[in-house]
């Protein structure tokens, strides 16, 4: 068949397909006026166009026609293979099942992240409790002064510096989100530096938190410090460890890819890691809510410790059990 006959025979089809594409490309504006287009026919029409493109190439029709058909096929491909997740149900399913499942699949990375955060924290905590000087190896005098001021029992709102005393809970909420979720994201991303970045951030945060805890307990500020951190600690610390574990997964793909190329391993691990980061971010969101609206409140110490303990149990049960048993492949 000569090109001209081919074009003449198929022109009506191409025209109909173009109308469909304009409708699909147009977005909301095009969609408002009642459609003259037959959307049901789009997939069949698209595969016909693909056939025409292949034919035009093998029959050596003119480059211009081939380019036109290529353009038509390319514009349709975008629409036929679009991924359109249902946002709300997907988010619920994600937290209910996907996130804890993926985390359990990478239990080793998770425990490494926990160890990198908590072991330095414990060691530094004990050291700072026993030795007055050791905290100055991490912070300078000004920082230590600020820290002491934060948890001075004379404060109306523990955990907030003197100039932040007047800030409302909501302002602090914004601050915690920006700061903590940012740390979570960074400790994931820096895992791309062969895992070293994540490990450094985890250890560094562990040392700092440990030093602060040990130092303040030594000063007898423990009452304000521990009641303040007990509420949000379970979510925040676990989430930071999980973000770091996600970064360690990236590092592992580069250092020990196994029987895959490094690039393939990185892609595969990144897909799981981003699930962990997303889950950790939502946990940090929860932690920020607790930290802003509960931790600095005036509930009695026993209640606060109880809430903190319940938090640890809840986190452990959630991460260990959620999403088990159902295999709907969500």
């Amino acid at each position: 068949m000569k090109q001209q006959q081919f074009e003449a025979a198929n022109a009506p089809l191409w025209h109909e397909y173009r109308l469909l594409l304009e409708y699909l490309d147009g977005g909301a504006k095009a969609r408002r006026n009642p459609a003259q287009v037959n959307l049901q026919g789009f997939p069949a029409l698209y595969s016909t166009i693909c056939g025409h493109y292949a034919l035009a190439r093998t029959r050596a029709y003119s480059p211009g026609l081939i380019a036109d058909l290529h353009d038509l096929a390319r514009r349709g491909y975008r629409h036929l293979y679009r991924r359109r997740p249902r946002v709300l149900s997907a988010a619920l399913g994600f937290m209910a099942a996907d996130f804890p499942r993926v985390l359990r699949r990478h239990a080793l990375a998770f425990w490494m992240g926990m160890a990198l955060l908590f072991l330095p924290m414990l060691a530094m905590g004990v050291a700072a409790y026993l030795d007055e000087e050791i905290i100055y190896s991490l912070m300078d005098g000004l920082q230590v002064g600020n820290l002491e001021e934060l948890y001075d029992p004379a404060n109306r709102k523990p955990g907030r510096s003197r100039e932040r005393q007047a800030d409302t809970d909501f302002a602090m909420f914004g601050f915690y989100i920006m700061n903590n979720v940012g740390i979570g994201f960074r400790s994931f991303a820096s895992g791309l530096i062969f895992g070293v970045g994540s490990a450094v951030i985890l250890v560094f945060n562990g040392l700092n938190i440990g030093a602060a805890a040990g130092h303040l307990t030594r000063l007898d500020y423990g009452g304000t410090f521990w009641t303040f951190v007990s509420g949000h600690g379970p979510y925040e610390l676990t989430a930071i460890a999980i973000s770091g574990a996600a970064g360690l997964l990236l590092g592992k793909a580069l250092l020990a890819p196994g029987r895959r190329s490094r690039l393939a391993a990185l892609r595969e691990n990144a897909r799981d890691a981003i699930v962990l980061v997303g889950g950790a971010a939502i946990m940090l969101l929860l932690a920020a809510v607790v930290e802003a609206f509960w931790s600095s409140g005036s509930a009695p110490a026993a209640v606060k410790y109880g809430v903190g303990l319940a938090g640890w149990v809840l986190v452990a049960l959630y991460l260990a059990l959620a999403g088990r048993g159902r295999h709907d492949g969500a």
Partner: protein
Amino acid sequence: MQPSIDTIRFNETPEGIDLGLRVAGPVPRALALVLDIVIRMALYLILTPLIVLADFGLGLMLLAFFGLEWLYPVVFEVWRGATPGKRAMGLRVVHDDGTPIGLPASMIRNLLRVVDFLPLLYGVGLVAVLLDRDFRRLGDLAAGTLVLRVDGGHQPRGAVVAAPVAPPLGLGLEAQQAILSFAERSQRLSEARRIELAEVLTQASGDRGELAVARVRGWASWLARGRMQESR
């Protein structure tokens, strides 16, 4: 159709055809980045007065800053396929099979910006882009994404309307394509260039000048429409 030195990356679709993806290089991407930074700075400036709403406003402002810092590219890429800066530069982000980008891939490539930014002003990212055949930075490599140039409607092709003339026997496919391509593009070429190209194609018969042009157009007409002049 198979350029060897080009940035087009071919991707086979489930329909068994090769779709060409035009990958965008570092310069338009850097410009898009600058545009995005300007837009974000403007938004920061607009949001800063929230602070006069006292504490609630301060909280809102901090939340907005967080969104601008981390979520701005993700939201726009998943929603519109590109950030405003990329859109202005005619770029679009897709999965490496050419499908529109989804949330996980967009999160990966944008969070890993932190590493691409190191040690200064996207140093790592630039090196990765220059080393990779498809101009991918580390975030793109991990997420499996590409940044493409969106071609606005390409040049309309001229109709082949000359009276058919039988081409020489034994023309290869490549020669036929060259002849057809010439006929479609000849109206857009300058006269001198048109004649020069036509003379290359008609070397064997030795036509010169406009005669050569007419002959090549005749051949193209024969190839596209056949010997018989059908009634139009």
